[in-house]
């Protein structure tokens, strides 16, 4: 099957093809999942790019290893990988194994698409503030907020990732986004509000 045709195949089917020895399926899954898990890990780890890459690689390795035993329909591949990333990030945050790096140190380079230096500086400042604010939230709230508002997962999907009920997810995201919670209040500076424009 050509690469373009593979892009329409579901994650479940790709994983089944991978387990049967299809190398192209491995490539398509890699290109589909790695950007998502890297972005999520990066947000949870406060923008630490190197640490996020380690987590993304480890999560994908666990997916490859479980592929032969994967039972389609029991869980979604993407939510399973998000769950692994969540656990790996939690372990690293708790064990203090993270390298000392300032938040926002590895923000993506979007030079090609940046409309201008001023806008780029403003966006960088916003991202730094966002990472700082996320870093002050409790683990579960931070994970729920990132999954909901940045990764774009639905509440049932987040519930599957975090291993909690949908009501708990609603509570976590609501508390994480409560108007002017302490973490966000400290970030409400003029450049966050766009007043430098």
């Amino acid at each position, binding site marked *: 099957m050509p690469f373009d045709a593979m892009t329409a195949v579901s994650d479940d089917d790709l994983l089944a093809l991978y387990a049967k020895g299809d190398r192209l399926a491995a490539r398509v899954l890699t290109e589909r999942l790695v*950007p998502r898990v890297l*972005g999520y890990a990066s947000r949870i780890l406060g923008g630490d790019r190197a640490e996020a890459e380690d987590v993304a*690689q480890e999560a994908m*390795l666990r997916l*490859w290893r479980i*592929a032969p035993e994967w039972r389609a329909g029991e869980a979604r591949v993407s939510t399973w990988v998000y769950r692994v990333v969540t656990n790996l990030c939690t372990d690293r945050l708790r064990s203090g194994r993270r390298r000392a790096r300032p938040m926002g140190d590895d923000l993506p380079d979007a030079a090609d698409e940046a409309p201008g230096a001023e806008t780029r500086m403003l966006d960088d400042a916003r991202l730094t503030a966002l990472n700082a604010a996320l870093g002050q939230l409790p683990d579960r709230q931070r994970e729920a907020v990132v999954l909901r508002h940045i990764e*774009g997962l639905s509440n049932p999907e987040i519930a599957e990732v975090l291993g909690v009920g949908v009501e708990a997810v609603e509570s976590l995201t609501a508390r994480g986004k409560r108007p002017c919670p302490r973490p966000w209040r400290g970030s409400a500076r003029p450049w966050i509000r766009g007043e430098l424009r």
Partner: protein
Amino acid sequence: MSDQILEDLFGVARAAAPAPSAGLMARVLADAYEAQPLPAPAAPAAAVTRPGWRLLLAAMVDGLGGAGAVAGWPAAAAGLFFGYASPEALDWLAGAVSPSGADSYELLSAADLFLTEG
């Protein structure tokens, strides 16, 4: 901070999702190939359907040099029979190649000899 400001922040974060480096993609793919199960080889159909007695026969034929060698056995057995059988026992075979009722044959007749001397 209003919801709108928060939504703007999340929008900036979504747009600026970190792109994976080529090195990371290569490492993940290398892991995938290393952990990937090998494709299962196709099982030979005969080994699955052959009954027990045919398996035994096949083993015997293989032990005697294979099907090609065994195919020559009937001819070898016929040769042994003709070698050991007495001539009388082969009259039926002689009758098949000589005309019935003829006792003797003259290979050079006297009439032919006269004609050739001219």
